[in-house]
């Protein structure tokens, strides 16, 4: 480990430029305090830049430093406010002889007083503010963050949480089932509600607006809400179950979002949704509104892949998931493993653990760099959506377990016998798989037989298994942990 070259006293504050590691941002002997917020960054220094200096610069630029020495530091308890990089490790399989140029994991500790209580905007303005554009770095990625209990306790957390959501919906012991209405654009309110009714009455628990369905010329938001709630209530009457549809209240302003959310509440909806692109503050505002109004809050992670997918630069999705659990949403799209969107099994496991654990232990092979005690913050329900179908039910239950919403959009609406049949196929496949798992059967190996057995008393499931039998999305993942061989399942 590179030694500390810190300088102190008058020497430290002489006007001019001083290496970050000499200004106190590199402290190899530092032991993070219980109350420190700790980050792990992946840094790719520019050619010729010393990795420890680059890591110290990240600590500096994400806390108190600027490019030159300033005497006004001496008016403050600056040693407390300086972020401290205390560890720099080379990333396995990078650098000479590796797959990519040299990368390093830099561990940086931040004092609790650097952050405003309960504010994701403030936290992120520090940690991912200026520093990602810093010239001496070729690329930078925030891999993980340990949030101290003292700071976690200043956040509301999920408005409803997994436990209470299940109690409210009266649905236990199995994943919930949903579908996104398709086509996502162009349906009139009346036609849109037809899809909702068919899917919910066929056996799904939820239907969902897509991320970009807001209020367009073909369907004003009020039309959608009115027809959807007719569909939801009709489906509840024919099934005797609580049903819901995620009414997307994403809009241009908070005033518009509140107006739409209030209308959804007046109509008796149990759930509303927002998109990640509304921003952290709007998300926290809606989470607070949701708690005040007994509403489940669904978050669609629209836009995240622009900064989460590439390994070298951006913010790992496990960190976004963590921030969203703190911010207070109840559902978050978190990957399917087997579907059409990015999702290495180990990385997805780490994200799901981040959403659902009461304590998430360090697990490098799942991309988890720190122990995280969640301090009884509500659990966040992960949502698996994108290119999944009934024939994968055993794999989905194996990888994702029980507390998850499985969303079959095309896998419901594209069923050859219609939407109701598609919904029924998914529900029967799911219940049969849970029953079998509870009976102690080996889902991984017996899954296809279990599905075939269930299809004997359910013709729509038999058709679904036939139509989609060869559909799988078997591509190498981009966002994979560095500590295990890459493994993408064959579907």
């Amino acid at each position: 480990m590179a030694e500390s070259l810190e300088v102190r006293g008058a020497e430290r504050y002489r006007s001019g430029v001083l290496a970050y590691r000499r200004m106190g941002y590199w402290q190899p002997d530092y032991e993070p305090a219980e109350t420190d917020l700790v980050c792990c960054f992946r840094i790719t220094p520019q050619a010729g830049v010393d990795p420890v200096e680059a890591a110290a610069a990240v600590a500096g630029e994400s806390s108190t430093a600027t490019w030159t020495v300033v005497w006004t530091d001496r008016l403050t308890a600056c040693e407390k406010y300086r972020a401290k990089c205390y560890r720099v490790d080379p990333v396995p399989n990078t650098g000479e002889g590796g797959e990519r140029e040299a990368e390093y994991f830099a561990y940086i500790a931040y004092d609790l007083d650097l952050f405003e209580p309960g504010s994701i905007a403030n936290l992120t303005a520090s940690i991912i503010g200026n520093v990602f554009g810093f010239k001496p770095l070729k690329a930078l990625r925030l891999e993980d963050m340990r949030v101290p209990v003292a700071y976690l306790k200043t956040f509301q957390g999920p408005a409803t949480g997994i436990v209470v959501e299940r109690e409210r919906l009266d649905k236990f012991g199995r994943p919930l089932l949903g579908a996104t209405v398709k086509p996502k654009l162009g349906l009139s309110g009346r036609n849109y509600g037809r899809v909702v009714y068919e899917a919910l009455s066929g056996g799904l628990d939820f239907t969902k607006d897509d991320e970009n369905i807001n209020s367009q010329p073909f369907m004003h938001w009020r039309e959608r809400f009115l027809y959807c709630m007719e569909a939801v209530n009709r489906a509840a009457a024919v099934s005797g179950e609580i049903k819901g549809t995620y009414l997307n209240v994403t809009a241009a302003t908070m005033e518009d979002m509140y107006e739409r959310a209030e209308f959804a509440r007046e109509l008796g909806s149990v759930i509303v949704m927002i998109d990640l692109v509304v921003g952290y503050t709007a998300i926290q505002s809606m989470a607070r509104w949701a708690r005040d109004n007994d509403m489940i809050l669904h978050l669609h992670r629209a836009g995240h892949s622009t900064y989460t997918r590439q390994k070298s630069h951006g913010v790992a999705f496990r960190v976004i998931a963590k921030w969203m659990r703190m911010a207070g949403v109840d559902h978050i799209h978190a990957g399917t493993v087997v579907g059409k969107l990015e999702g290495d099994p180990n990385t997805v496991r780490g994200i799901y653990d981040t959403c659902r654990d009461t304590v998430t232990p360090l697990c490098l092979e799942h991309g988890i760099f720190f122990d995280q005690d969640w301090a009884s913050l509500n659990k966040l329900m992960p949502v698996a959506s994108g290119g999944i179908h009934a024939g994968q039910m055993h794999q989905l239950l194996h990888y994702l377990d029980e507390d998850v919403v499985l969303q079959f959009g095309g896998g419901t609406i594209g069923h050859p016998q219609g939407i109701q049949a598609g919904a029924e196929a998914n529900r029967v496949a799911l219940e049969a798989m849970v029953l079998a798992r509870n009976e102690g059967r080996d889902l991984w190996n017996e899954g296809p037989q279990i599905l075939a057995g269930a299809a004997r008393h359910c013709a729509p499931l038999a058709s679904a298994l036939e139509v989609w039998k060869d559909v799988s999305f078997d591509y190498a993942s981009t966002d994979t942990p560095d500590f295990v061989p890459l493994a993408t399942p064959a579907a």
Partner: protein
Amino acid sequence: MSARRITQGTFSFLPDLSDEQIAAQLKYCLGKGWAVNVEHTDDPHPRNTYWEMWGQPMFDLRDPAGAMQEVRACREAFPGHYVRVSAFDASHGVESIRLSFIVNRPDPEPTLRLQRTETRGRSVRYTLATRGAGER
């Protein structure tokens, strides 16, 4: 579904579970350390949360056969009611139900009627009413 039925509970889309299948689920619950509870009602309204308890949750019972005996006894006492088995997990972070499934249904089943009250503008207030069950 061939004939509409109330589809609350974890396994309502499957053919009615045999006693053997019910026993396997009870074994699973007890194996997890959950307490099994038997409840019954004649009103399947989805907001009817508190069904009548058939005794208390069986916190100290670890034998699936004993739990199955309670299921049978409740079914025999209330053949015209819905009977469900719920399993409670008392561990921190859950402290709630982990599995809940119907093990007896009335024949014929009551139905739910959707009543609409037009309110402001095109808004409608929806109410579900159970039909064909003893009123409560």
